Structure formats: C-alpha cells, structure tokens
C-alpha cells in the first residue's frame, strides 16, 4: 500500500537557520497539506496546496514559511529563519480530491536551539 514519506525524520537546527522539510506524497494525490504539532498540543493546519499554488493558509503560515512542489514529486516546506517556537513535529498530508480522506506522513521532528 502506498505511503506518504517524509525526510528527515529528525532535524536539529540553530535559531535563524533555514530548514527545508521534504515530503513525497502518494502519486495519485492532487491536494497537499502541511500541519504541525507542538509537543503536547493539537495538530494545527499550516497550508494547503493544489495545482501548484497555495489554496489556503493559516495565521501560523507567515512570511517565514514557503511551500513548493518543484518536480511534481517532492512537496517541501521551507522555514527561512527558524525561531525557537518553530520546534514541533511537522506532518505532510495528501488527498485525491477535496473533502476526502487525508493521508499523513510519519512527520519530521524539528528542534530549534
């Protein structure tokens, strides 16, 4: 059964550094999402992406964040200048169509020091 994969599984970075989190969605999915979960807190929506552009974004997704799908396979989340409060688990998800089941990856645990 196809799965969503994410790399790296863990990343430690210094405050102010740029990080890129990578996701490979299931091949027949068309809608893509990033979520984050700060330790002990709720899973929070960041951004959705369809047809090579952002469809919806939350208040968390400010100018420090960007997403792209450069090669039709990888789906990336970039944080330009990380802050301590960016430390969280980041999940990517995909779905075949809107309002359908979303399939999540295992997550990348980001620690900003």
């Amino acid at each position: 059964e196809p799965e969503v994969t994410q790399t790296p599984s863990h990343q430690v970075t210094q405050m102010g550094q740029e990080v890129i989190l990578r996701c490979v969605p299931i091949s027949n999915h068309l809608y893509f999402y990033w979520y984050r979960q700060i330790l002990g807190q709720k899973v929070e929506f960041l951004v959705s992406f369809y047809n090579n552009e952002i469809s919806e974004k939350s208040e968390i997704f400010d100018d420090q964040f960007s997403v792209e799908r450069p090669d039709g396979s990888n789906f990336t989340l970039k944080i330009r200048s990380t802050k301590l409060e960016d430390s969280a688990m980041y999940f990517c998800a995909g779905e075949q169509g809107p309002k359908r089941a979303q399939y999540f990856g295992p997550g990348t645990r980001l620690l900003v020091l």
Partner: protein
Amino acid sequence: SQQGEEDPQALSIQEGENATMNCSYKTSINNLQWYRQNSGRGLVHLILIRSNEREKHSGRLRVTLDTSKKSSSLLITASRAADTASYFCAPAYSGGGADGLTFGKGTHLIIQP
C-alpha cells in the same frame, strides 16, 4: 474552518470492552472524518462519513452522524491493546477548495490489558 470537540478527553477501559467517543461541531459539514494518532506518530485516517449518511462501519469501528445535533460518535468494539491512541474527529465543512482539517484535543484512549 472550525474544529470538532471530542468527548471524553480521556477514556480507560479493559481489553475486550467497547469504547465510545463523541464529537460535536458547529456548522454545516460536507463530511466528518475520524483519525487516530499513536504517540509521536502521524495521523491515520480511520473512517469518513458523509453528511447524508447516518451510520457507517469499518471492521470493528462504527461511526454515527446526527446532523440535526451536529454530533458524531465513534464506537470501537472488542478493544485491543493496540487501540491505545488518541482519536480525533475532523469536520470537513461545506464549500469548495482544499480546506485544511482542524483538530481538537482528541480523546486519549487507553486499553488496559
């Protein structure tokens, strides 16, 4: 989009017993989805029930939906230790587009051996 609210926040039962958890939401939905999250892992889609459905089954899972009360329930029958996890409902609201799901605090289910 608005989150669903799960109830109870925590539930501890003996292996073999049935577990019931509830979800309430605020506005009209296209469908409602249930997800499971094992500690520190990605969310796993369990079941999706559409707004015109009242009940749906998948293996040991039974979901009901009452749109007049804006509520849903998830029943896990014959629970197993592996069912220990957090369970979340995610209402998918009416309207087009790739809407991110909004998750609540979930029901933390513990199955005692």
